């Protein structure tokens, strides 16, 4: 098997109009950046990768994760994590509750694992907090922790830095990219911000497959 995320001849059409054309491989620890204006098919590609593509679209080609074909799998069986533009921390749960939701079922020592993860991210003692009382940067870190605790094999980034203020932005961005490299996760970043693309250090392509 080939470790990493492979998009083999992925084509997405809407009513016969081609939207996405991508054939590429993202190695573990590498970040592939998809750049393009809104409406160019970036979110459509993310929906296809995560398994929530609207039936109005047709998808051809195969999506392989560590050699496993996930193209037809439901979202929850793909083991692909996602970070959205908004952190979307579940507002009815505490910080620890959000993390516990992500932790796979049946793992022993859940509370200790959560506390350790928080401490590692510089958020020791934040477990009982209301997510709404956190700063933007803290929320972004909790969202990343939540994604990682589910033990994904790949990670998608849907403009996750665009809502952060300028000084936090660079800091959070390097934290996310470092974590992805440290965990050797293949990642796909969707953005329209050239700085994000540069910081990701990987290939940059448009949804129709052209390189920048």
């Amino acid at each position, binding site marked *: 098997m080939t470790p990493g995320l492979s998009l083999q001849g992925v084509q997405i059409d809407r009513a016969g109009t081609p939207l996405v054309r991508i054939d590429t491989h993202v190695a573990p620890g590498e970040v592939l950046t998809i750049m393009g204006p809104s409406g160019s098919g970036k979110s459509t590609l993310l929906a296809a990768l*995560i*398994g*929530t593509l*609207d*039936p109005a679209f047709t998808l051809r080609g195969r999506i392989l994760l560590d050699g496993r074909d996930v193209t037809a799998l*439901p*979202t*929850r069986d*793909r*083991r*692909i*994590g*996602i970070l*959205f533009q*908004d952190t*979307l*921390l*579940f*507002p*009815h749960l505490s910080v620890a509750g959000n993390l516990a*939701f*992500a932790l*796979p079922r049946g793992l022993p020592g859940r509370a200790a694992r959560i506390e350790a993860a928080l401490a590692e991210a510089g958020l020791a003692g934040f477990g009982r907090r*209301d*997510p*709404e*009382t956190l700063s933007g940067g803290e929320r972004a870190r909790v969202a990343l922790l*939540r*994604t990682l605790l*589910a033990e*994904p094999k790949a990670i998608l980034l849907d403009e996750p830095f665009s809502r952060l203020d300028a000084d936090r932005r660079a800091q959070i961005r390097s934290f996310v990219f470092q974590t992805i490299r440290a965990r050797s996760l293949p990642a796909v970043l969707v953005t329209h911000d050239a700085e994000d693309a540069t910081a990701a250090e990987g290939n940059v392509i448009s949804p129709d497959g052209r390189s920048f």
Partner: protein
Amino acid sequence: MTRLLRAVPGLTLALMAVPVAAGLAATLGPALAPGALSALLAWPGLPRAVMLSLTTGLASTTLALAITLLILATLRGTRAFAALLRLLSPLLSVPHAAAALGLAFLIAPSGWIARALSPWATGWSQAPDLLILNDPAGLSLTLGLVAKEVPFLLLMALAAWPQIAAPSRLTLAQTLGYGQTAAFAFTVLPPLYRQLRLPVYAVLAYAMTSVEMGMILGPNLPPPLSVQVAGWMTEASLAQRGTAAAGAALQLVLVLAALALWRGAEIAARHGLTGMATAGLRLPGLDAPARLLALAGGAAVTAGLIAGLAGLALWSVAGLWRFPAALPESLSLATWARAAPTLGPITGNTLGLALGSAGLALILAIACLEAEHRFRLRPSAPALWLLWLPLIVPQITFLPGLHRLALELGAGGFAATLAGHLVFVLPYVFLSLAPAWRALDPRFATLAASLGASPGRSLWAIRLPLLLRPLLTAFAVGFAVSVGQYLATLLLSGGRIATLTTEAVSLSSGGNRRLIGVYALLQMALPALVFALALLGPALLYRNRRGMAA
């Protein structure tokens, strides 16, 4: 399990459409018997009863819609509007019967208004012998219907408000020099009315055929057609069955004719509005009088309902209260104490039906919406019409037949009554819950699935808790609707299950104001209590979750 869930929306629609259709057939069937129609035509009160149904229905619906639209056009964004909304929203949960009884206490010759003016202005030292209440022209019935329907239409309009980008349309029209009223009528009313059409049809059909409002506020000799038909239907002898069926058929024809007339008026109004808009009429002079009318209408509805309900409460604890004293000479709990032994079981029946039907309706509504979510179903226009069907088809034209069918199937009593309540409760619960459910950010579900959660876990651990407030509100709406059911309870239980509503209505002809006050007050207190719990529960549970604040 998955296949069952997939079938729920269709089954739920059938659950509402089938009883209505079968009930209609069984109710109207006997009208074809020989002699039925001639017996109806031989009733001397028929022409007046038909006229009353048409005039009270059309007049009250027109007035209620006009007041609602004037309030929205001229008062939105003002403090008066906020105050009005705070007062009117809770009044929506007041059952029709309680509202009607309250108004009756207010406007009766011995009511609060007469007392306030006596003897200094009127010279009355005794209650005058005037037919203000139950007036032959149906004016008090019309006013009662207006008061009850304005809160409903206003809240339905506000629910549609976010979908039509009203603020930017209004601002745009006003920058082009249009007056507030004209801006509303030309740019907001057309899309708003499209969303309001079904609620308006339901209001019109209800106003033409309401039995309990007609009994309490309407004329007696003859009463509006629906009241007379209900009388024939509930007569012990079967002699009037054909007459009753023919009357119900006539009532259905009347409602359909009135709906057709209304539809014609809609088309005419749209052409008129388009003509005025393209002629560039700015009409700024309309704003001041329109605002005045809106304030007067809104204030009259609110004050009438609140004063009426306060009157009910006061009568229930009144000791001696002579005319024209504005307040009773003493207060006592004697009426409550005397009523207590019968109140218990009757309240139990009311609670059982309301908790049962609202609970079932909530489960079905959740299942429908979850099926819509999981299978990416799109709500269709015919489905929406089916949902409104039980609210538009007059109750008197399908409930009697439904009762007979239930008896033939061997399902009588509580179960049949509960099922009947469900037919009316479910549409309201669904309509209350669906907007919030569909507005929940779909990325929460995607996120939960990407973290490995099953659809069930995503529902139970994430989406239902996030929707706790609208879920409980929808339950409270259903509860209030069930508590208010008069005809469904009376007919489907064969008169054997007494609820607060059936008791309050049957007491209304008697004139024991203290006892009426007790029943009506409790009838309105139960829904109010459930609404309060629906607000308080999430507020307490999520007191440390700022993201869950309303």
